[in-house]
């Protein structure tokens, strides 16, 4: 299930919340666990088993680590089992096609992915309808495996205490707001709230406002600006004008930001209503003044996960320059690969790794001295070129598209550009203002001036936003969630 679906909005959400509000503290984790499973099974009736299995193994690993508290060897084995199992799930369900395609491409063989063979076998036993050609990615697998791992790793490092209640642990993994597309909430961040939390009217109200804000970002901005990119992406890059190419990739730039940050807002809003405080995931990344800063503002929870569990364990920047750069390259290749199983994504990650290394080598100092609009423009353009790599299907497509951005299509401006920019003028201006932080500034300013005014305008925003989004959802034929591929 996804949040921007009528079924979720008008049935799942109110029913779960009403049940939750009338229940006592003890029942609440039961409700979270069961509804989380239902929520997940709604979209993945088969793969829900995998999520449960992963939960069970990590929970057991945690209990065993606790049991053999003095035996470091056994604790290590538990950690290795947990990490291997999670990484293994990713390898099987997310990367196996990519691995076999790469091998076959390299050696000229045609080995069938064994996972596909298993799918075929299972379909013979019962018509599960599993894909017999490719491996379908279980929704949210990149998120829940990373979350689960944060628990066993932190437990091994003795940063946290063991969770003895299976109910509490599985509530953490299957907490429906964040299960599908993050934010990647680390166990330690919600450990206390899993035991007890309070739900109050101001919290629910703030949660509703954050939820509607995210919904509006997704439904009103991301989906509509995404239409432009869908059109441009399908064009022949050899003959589009430079302006059209730029417009297309800028549309994607906004689409992915509003899609993903909208989803994070919705998740955090829902979390708030349930009494959880999720970490911030986006902080107006497009006004960053360096690529390093961009990555501190974009998908913050993923960056901090890789920093805590890969970069620092590898030695971080404490083992000399050479190792620091090696570590950066590993982290960025993995970050790229996390986003998707293809060479485009690996290259996309390495591209950012390279830019960050260049900034560390001294360019960062230069950026600080430059006027801020110059460093912002540099960062923004660097990110936009990154998106070309990210969302074109092959490396050669990416190359042709970038060529088109420099006029290889033969013209600077064409009719499509003129028409589209005029008819989407309002939408694009809204995208620029909101991603630039103007909306948040106004809301903060209003809050400082008059809290009652802000509260009243919040009520109006929630009502209006929800109704307007409903109109767009009832009409929606175009409603794909970008972050489902990851």
């Amino acid at each position, binding site marked *: *299930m996804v949040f921007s*679906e*009528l*079924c979720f*909005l*008008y*049935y799942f*959400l*109110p029913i779960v*919340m*009403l049940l939750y509000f009338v229940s006592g503290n003890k029942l609440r984790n039961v409700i979270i666990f069961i509804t989380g499973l239902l929520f997940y099974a*709604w*979209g993945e*009736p*088969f793969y829900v088993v995998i999520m449960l299995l992963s939960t069970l193994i990590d929970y057991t690993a945690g209990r065993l680590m606790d049991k053999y508290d003095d035996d470091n060897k056994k604790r290590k084995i538990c950690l290795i089992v947990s990490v291997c199992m999670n990484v293994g799930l990713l390898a099987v369900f997310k990367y196996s096609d990519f691995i076999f395609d790469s091998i076959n491409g390299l050696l000229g063989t045609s080995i069938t992915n064994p996972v596909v063979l298993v799918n075929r076998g299972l379909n013979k036993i*019962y*018509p*599960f*309808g599993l894909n017999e050609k490719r491996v379908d990615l279980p929704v949210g697998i990149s998120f829940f495996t990373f979350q689960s791992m944060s628990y066993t790793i932190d437990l091994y490092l003795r940063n946290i205490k063991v969770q003895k209640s299976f109910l509490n642990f599985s509530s953490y993994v299957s907490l429906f707001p964040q299960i599908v597309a993050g934010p990647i909430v680390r166990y330690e961040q919600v450990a206390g709230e899993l035991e007890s939390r309070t739900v109050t*009217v*101001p919290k*629910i*109200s*703030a949660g*509703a*406002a954050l939820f*509607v804000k995210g919904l509006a970002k997704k439904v009103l901005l991301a989906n509509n600006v995404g239409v432009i990119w869908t059109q441009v992406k399908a064009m022949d890059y050899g003959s589009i004008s430079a302006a059209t190419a730029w417009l297309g990739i800028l549309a994607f730039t906004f689409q992915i930001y509003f899609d993903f940050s909208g989803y994070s807002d919705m998740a955090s809003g829902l979390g708030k209503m349930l009494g959880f405080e999720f970490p911030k995931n986006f902080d107006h990344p497009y006004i960053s003044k360096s690529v390093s800063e961009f990555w501190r503002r974009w998908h913050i929870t993923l960056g901090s996960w890789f920093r805590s569990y890969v970069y620092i364990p590898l030695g971080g920047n404490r083992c000399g320059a050479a190792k620091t750069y090696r570590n950066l390259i590993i982290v960025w290749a993995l970050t790229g690969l996390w986003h998707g199983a293809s060479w485009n994504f690996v290259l996309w990650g390495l591209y950012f790794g390279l830019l960050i290394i260049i900034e560390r080598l001294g360019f960062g100092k230069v950026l600080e001295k430059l006027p801020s609009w110059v460093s912002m423009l540099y960062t923004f353009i660097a990110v936009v070129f990154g998106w070309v790599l990210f969302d074109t299907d092959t490396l050669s497509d990416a190359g042709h598209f970038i060529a088109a951005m420099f006029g290889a299509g033969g013209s600077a401006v064409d*009719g*499509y550009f*003129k*028409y589209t920019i*005029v*008819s*989407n*003028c*309002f*939408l694009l201006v809204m995208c620029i203002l909101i991603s630039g932080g103007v909306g948040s500034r106004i809301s903060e300013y209003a809050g400082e001036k*008059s*809290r*009652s005014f802000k*509260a*009243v305008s*919040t*009520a109006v925003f*929630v*009502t209006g936003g*929800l*109704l*307007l989004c*409903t*109109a*767009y*959802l*009832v*009409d*929606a034929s175009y409603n794909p969630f970008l972050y489902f591929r990851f």
Partner: protein
Amino acid sequence: MSKNKTAQTRTAAQREQRTEVIASIATVLLFFGILVGFGLVTVFSEKESFSETQNRKLADFPKISGKNIYSGKFTSGVEDYISDHFAGHDRWIAAKTAAELLSGKRERNDIYILDDRLVEKIAEPDMDEVSKSAMGIKQFAEDNHILPYVMIVPTQAEIYKNELPANAPNPDQQAFINDVYSMLDGSAVPIDVYSVMSANKDSYIYYRTDHHWTTQGAFLAYTAAAKKMDITPLSVSDYDIDHASDSFKGTFYSKVLYEGIEPDSIDIWLPADREKEPEVEIYSTFGAEPEIHEGMYFREYLDVKDKYSTFFGTNQPMITIRTGNKGGRLLVFKDSYAHCFVPFMTEHFSEITMVDLRYIQMSYKDIIDVSDYDKVLFLYNASTFMSDRNLKKLMY
């Protein structure tokens, strides 16, 4: 004095706080009120199984079975069911149209919303496919030793191109029609209706809310065709014009549900001296006896949404009209533009057969004998001719 002031500030601060509390309670109530309210109304409202505005069957609640659930059909079916039957469905669609117009867009669901009419956005034609359609007609002419007439009618998007938003994508239909006519050079007699339509663009020749031309538009084409086909056409004064309806909201309207355009009228042109309406045979399936209808006008459709179907009903594979007049026999390969055009031809032929290749799986040779006919006409609007892939079936 100062005491008074503190008291005042306190009450102001209290008032501020009270408003804040009330507003946050209101936020929660409004948020859940909207969700629960529309959720419940959707569940308990009476369900339609067919939507007239959308001209399609609405989703049924999906069957609950293991297979459906594992394949994900159940859950996607529930979502379809909810969106199709959502409380106030059409009003939400209209609200989205209003929001889009407010944001400065003039295009919605491939419809351009102009000041006084709706116009369809047409995709650029795939000329390789179009040339196959032309090949089909050529092959047909050769196989049957006949010189067919071909009439490709421009649509609103061409005739009103100057009223479209600046730079709106819009293929040049005049050039397209000329291209097709030159592909057919020597194998068919082209009938130019572009000039007459474009010269009369200020008259009511196209519906404002539907993709068809009006009876008046078809009449202009009839006079243009008559010249080529050696027919002496009737003149306007020979007809009694029956304004059968003035509340027609057509297919374009359905796509946008925009009320800012005046509804259309349906006019039925009846020759003043006609004594008996022709008899119409409708072949919806071959092999079975045709359904017989007295007259070409299906007035029962005047009471429903799809009022254009007053002309010969909905699209059918084959329709034969026994006109009761003297003259030869005419075979028409067509799309629905023919439905308000063909009645004009009944004055000049004893029998007219309309074949809609889009609804025929077999070869045309299996259902008609072309040698029975004196004249053959291909009548398509440019948009159908650009996109339809069925004319190439004439090659077999």
